[in-house]
């Protein structure tokens, strides 16, 4: 419970700072939030007891703590990266207290969600991750797109949570319990339970943006402020995947043959559709949105078959994905804040003016594309291995083909930055220390996770708990 308590304390402190400082004296907000959250992240790594609380509504295990720590690191990066955007305009800056509060409370929701032991906690955690973020997506009052993103996010999230709730209510009807542990001992074999599973799956798949529940993703990411998009695409998605794994392996473990089939098909179409759309995007945020959809399509490869190795592979992949995706979004955010440019052809010749930014971008994209020896390659490789060991050769083949296609569009960006020439490239951007630090953490993450084999072994030992 320490993670959540620390986060709540941090959120309250931020509120106090927000209330106690005057309008013209807000400059301490950003450093305060960064220091506070670094502290929270650090404390999260201290050893902690695991077990059940609140009569089983709240669980922790080594793996859940690992997940929470990964989310903490990701949010830390997001908070650091947000500094540039918050300083960008007075209005944003004025909102910074509320911004940090909402980000942290959303993280509290995620922590409770992945720790939840019953559906009520799960549902409330899920809503806590989404509803405040929808407000953040719409925060840029001057931009129409921001409001559009907010309204699309909140309405489609409302629909999906309605569907999810309907599924939960049917589960309750058939099993009489809302606790994961007592549901998992039930042998689900009626078609009504199948229906409930599909409804619940839809609700969670919406958050992960698996096709065909993905359509909100691109519009919301494009319209929302970059940092909110990066939060949604990395942290929010990762937490939804964690809870999906937990649900599939506890509540629905008797339906394993069903969810294997469902995951099989969604994986195939998600990868393909994500790739086909990503190929033709010009706006970088939209491009990264579709790339994140395609990335999500690889995750079922680890879950399918339900092995422990697969779970470790998924967590490993997600950890790398968080760093790589935040790295890419960080560069997009730095450029967007400095020049307002978000289109791919405006990135032409970036290497000449901003070699460091372009190298970070290249590294992140290579990691997303899965080019060895960057970390992303191992993430994908372990996923492929996990599915191949289970005998899903055709799925692995499709996935490998899709990974290859994805390379094409990641390279389009690399080409724009390194090879294409431009008459008026983006001018040299002098980044502040926050941006630099945020990108540095991402780069270190990508490199260290890829080259330190011990991390995977650690994940593997932690994932026995599920």
């Amino acid at each position, binding site marked *: 419970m320490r993670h959540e308590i620390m986060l709540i304390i941090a959120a309250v402190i931020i509120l106090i700072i927000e209330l106690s400082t005057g309008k013209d004296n807000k400059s301490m907000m950003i450093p305060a939030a960064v220091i506070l959250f670094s502290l929270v992240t650090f404390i999260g790594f201290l050893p902690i007891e695991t077990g059940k609380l609140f009569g089983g509504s709240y669980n922790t295990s080594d793996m859940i703590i690992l997940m929470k720590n990964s989310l903490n690191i990701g949010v830390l990066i997001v908070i650091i990266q947000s500094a540039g955007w918050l300083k960008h305009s007075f209005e944003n800056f004025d909102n910074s207290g509320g911004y940090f509060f909402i980000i942290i409370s959303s993280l509290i929701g995620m922590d409770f969600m992945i720790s939840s032991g019953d559906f*009520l906690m799960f549902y409330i955690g899920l*809503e806590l991750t989404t509803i405040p973020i929808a407000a953040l997506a719409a925060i840029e009052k001057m931009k129409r797109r921001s409001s559009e993103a907010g309204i699309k996010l909140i309405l489609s999230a409302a629909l999906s949570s309605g*569907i999810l709730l309907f599924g939960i*209510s049917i589960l*309750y*009807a058939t099993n009489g319990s809302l606790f994961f542990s007592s549901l998992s001992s039930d042998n689900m074999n009626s078609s009504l339970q199948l229906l409930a599973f599909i409804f619940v799956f839809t609700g969670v798949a919406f958050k992960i943006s698996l096709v065909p529940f993905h359509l909100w993703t691109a519009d919301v990411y494009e319209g929302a402020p970059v940092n909110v998009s990066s939060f949604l695409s990395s942290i929010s998605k990762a937490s939804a995947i964690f809870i999906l794994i937990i649900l599939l392996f506890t509540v629905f473990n008797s339906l394993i043959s069903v969810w294997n089939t469902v995951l099989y098909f969604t994986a195939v179409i998600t990868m393909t559709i994500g790739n086909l759309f990503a190929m033709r995007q010009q706006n970088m945020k939209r491009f990264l949105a579709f790339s994140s959809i395609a990335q999500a399509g690889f995750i079922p490869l680890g879950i399918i078959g339900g092995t422990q190795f697969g779970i470790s592979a998924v967590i490993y992949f997600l950890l790398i994905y968080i760093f790589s995706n935040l790295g890419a979004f960080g560069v997009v955010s730095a450029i967007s804040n400095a020049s307002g440019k978000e289109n791919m052809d405006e990135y032409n010749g970036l290497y000449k003016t901003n070699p460091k930014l372009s190298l970070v971008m290249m590294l992140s994209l290579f990691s997303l594309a899965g080019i060895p020896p960057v970390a992303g390659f191992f993430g994908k490789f372990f996923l492929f291995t996990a599915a191949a060991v289970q005998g899903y050769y055709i799925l692995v083949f499709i996935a490998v083909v899709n990974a290859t296609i994805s390379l094409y569009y990641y390279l389009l960006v690399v080409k724009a930055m390194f090879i294409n020439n431009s008459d008026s490239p983006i001018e040299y951007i002098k980044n502040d220390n926050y941006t630099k630090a945020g990108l540095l953490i991402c780069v270190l993450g990508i490199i260290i996770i890829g080259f330190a084999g011990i991390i995977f072994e650690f994940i593997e030992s932690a994932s026995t708990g599920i």
Partner: protein
Amino acid sequence: MESGVSIQHFMVLSTLMFFIGVYGFLTRKNLITILLSVELILNSVNINFVAFNKFLYPENLGGHFFAMFVIAVAATEVSVAIAIIISLYRKLKMIDVENVNEMKY
């Protein structure tokens, strides 16, 4: 149970209401009316929870509390959605869902 009302009755009622809500979500033009459809969906779920609690599992109050929390969450959802709709209205002077399509393809 006092009479012939079975749990299936309630489920049919709530399912119909759920899909009426979905229909509204898919067809209404005004963003606020879409929000109303969402409320219908949530309400149908509440009926489910309460009825199951009453007729199938009266030994605990799980369904009852779930319904309560759903009401509370619905309230937050509405407040945020209304805030966004109003901010959109300030910019566009209309809240027609079909015009909320600046980003596409």
